[in-house]
């Protein structure tokens, strides 16, 4: 069972602060981490590899050269190979251009039975790259997986689809995005950290290493453009309301509806 896991280096959004004056993101001093659900994908890949006889787990990422540390982290968790697709020409890619570029790298890797991705990243929060990648590669997909079982070339996936749980079956090769409920990612083993730096390499592929259609990469290959970013500035108002109970309840419901907090 050969498994490819796509990962992304993201800023730790718990640490991200916004400049209240400019509305710009303050990234300085914010640690870069491996996207949390990508760790669930790595864990699942390692688990599936262990339960099959042989094969290897490859992590693949697109990003600047600094993203190498994220791949080292994946190696420290125990994956076999790490590939970083990095080129200035890829900068500004949206999910279409990103999924295209990743798909071309995966075509170069050639041998794989399964591609696993995190359901979504904590920075862009789109959850689109997985399904879009599946489309570029013409693979069956399952999103938000909470359980994966493999027998021979049949993959069974249990996914939580809002109010229902769907059990799907498909043939390998397939692409599955995993939810953070699928497992608990392992901690990094000290000796694996050593091996990740001493015995393993992060392979870097640039534009020239892939057979790319230039119209599909980077900013120019991205249909969507960011027009503006802004912040909902919000400080606690400390408003005090004293009314009969029924009116209080009414006000609370209005507050919940106004902020679109009610889940139906």
């Amino acid at each position, binding site marked *: 069972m050969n498994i490819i896991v796509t990962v992304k280096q993201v800023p730790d959004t718990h640490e991200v602060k916004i400049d209240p004056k400019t509305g710009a993101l303050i990234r300085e001093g914010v640690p870069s981490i491996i996207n949390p659900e990508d760790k669930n994908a790595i864990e699942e890949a390692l688990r599936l590899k262990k339960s099959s006889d042989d094969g290897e787990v490859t992590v693949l990422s697109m990003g600047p050269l600094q993203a190498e540390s994220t791949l080292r982290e994946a190696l420290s968790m125990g994956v076999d190979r790490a590939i970083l697709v990095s080129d200035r020409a890829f900068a500004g890619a949206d999910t279409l251009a990103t999924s295209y570029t990743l798909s071309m790298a995966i075509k170069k890797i050639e041998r794989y039975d399964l591609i696993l991705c995190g359901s979504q990243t904590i920075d862009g929060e789109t*959850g689109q790259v997985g399904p879009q990648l599946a489309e570029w590669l013409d693979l069956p997909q399952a999103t938000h997986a909470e359980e994966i079982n493999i027998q021979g070339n049949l993959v069974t996936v249990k996914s939580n689809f809002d109010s229902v749980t769907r059990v799907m079956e498909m043939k390998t090769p397939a692409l599955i995005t995993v939810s953070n409920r699928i497992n608990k990612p392992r901690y990094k083993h000290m000796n694996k950290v050593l091996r990740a730096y001493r015995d393993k390499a992060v392979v870097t592929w640039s534009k020239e290493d892939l057979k790319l259609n230039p119209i599909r990469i980077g900013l120019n290959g991205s249909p969507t453009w960011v027009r503006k970013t802004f912040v909902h500035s919000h400080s606690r108002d400390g408003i005090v309301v004293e009314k009969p109970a029924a009116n209080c309840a009414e006000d609370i419901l209005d507050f919940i509806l106004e902020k679109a907090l009610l889940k139906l």
Partner: protein
Amino acid sequence: MPVIVHEEKCTGCKLCVAACPYTVISMQEEKAVLLPGCTYCGACIDTCEFGAITFEDFQGRLCMDVALFKGTHVFIEHDNQTASKVSLELLGKARGLADEFSRQGKDQLVTAILIGYELGDMADELIAYGADHVIVVNDESFKMYRTDIYTKAIVQIAGVKKPEILLFGATAQGRDLAPRIASRLRTGLTADCTALEICKDEGILLQTKPAFGGNMMVTIACPDNRPQMATVRPGVMKKYPRDPDKIGTKEVMKIDLDENDFIIHIRDIMASTKKHVKLEDAEIIVAGGHGVNNQQGLKILETLSDELGAELGASRAAVDEGWIGQDHQIGQTGKTVQPDLYIACGISGSLQHLAGISQSKYIIAINTDRKAPIVSASDVTFIGDLFQIVPVLKDKIREYKKRTD
């Protein structure tokens, strides 16, 4: 930016014919030929392994022929009987966008895409909720949602109809389906939008979504590709008031399927039992403190919490009293939480508790003491008896949900 076929390189493999979402490539004498109506999406160029298809006069960035696209299409999610709430919200939004277009002197139709089997009078309902036109695909194969053939159906519809805007609910289904379609159509997609508007100058769709854990809002446009696609968060847009007299048209479409289209097989669909999430991951938390008086008091909060789809939390005081287990404790010695909404009931707000909730997006407090520290740490504090307010609130939420369903 016309597409040209270099006859000498074309091997007649027909890959481009299959790849063209707009079905404007045909084979003549073993060579690909472009028919009128090409949108310049470039799907054929990606597919051709022989470099036989290129853009003529490529200017660095692919620009589709956006003038060919018209109208707003909404994909309808349903349970084969009624349309989901978010789909009706999207119709309402699409109506609003159509009005905006018409103010800009551009008449646009709102089209609902209804795919399923034995759909009853749902199409009429969609018209009543704002659709001008309903495209109905009624086929047993579509009885259950499946990524594979639903993608094919919508791509086929989009290929024929060329909508300017194509909207989906940001539900599990919408977010499973829309990205695949966007990839196949070679266009842009914005996820989980909370606002949509038409840019006054350019007439394009401005799509706003949260990012970075809700720390920031981003407005995204898709100027050069069509359709402009978005998934939209449920509960944000307003439904169009139901008008049973509204006039609209219906059209039945047939999707050509063959067995190779079925690559994902549904083995089972089960109702999910309510899954409790970790407090740290909860979107809404209802929490009780010393003011709930006893275990029974917490039960009352639990009914509210269930109605809201929230998780139940507690301050240390309530845990120390033994009213609830320690895994519910929030604060310095308990859990640090960051829900979108934190409702603190009968919690005075000791420093150690506030440390655990300060990352919440909104905090509402219900308390009898207007001098309690929780007041200044909250967005709004309602002074009153939680035993009176909470049950009424629970009922009002239930009513609201019934009303809008």
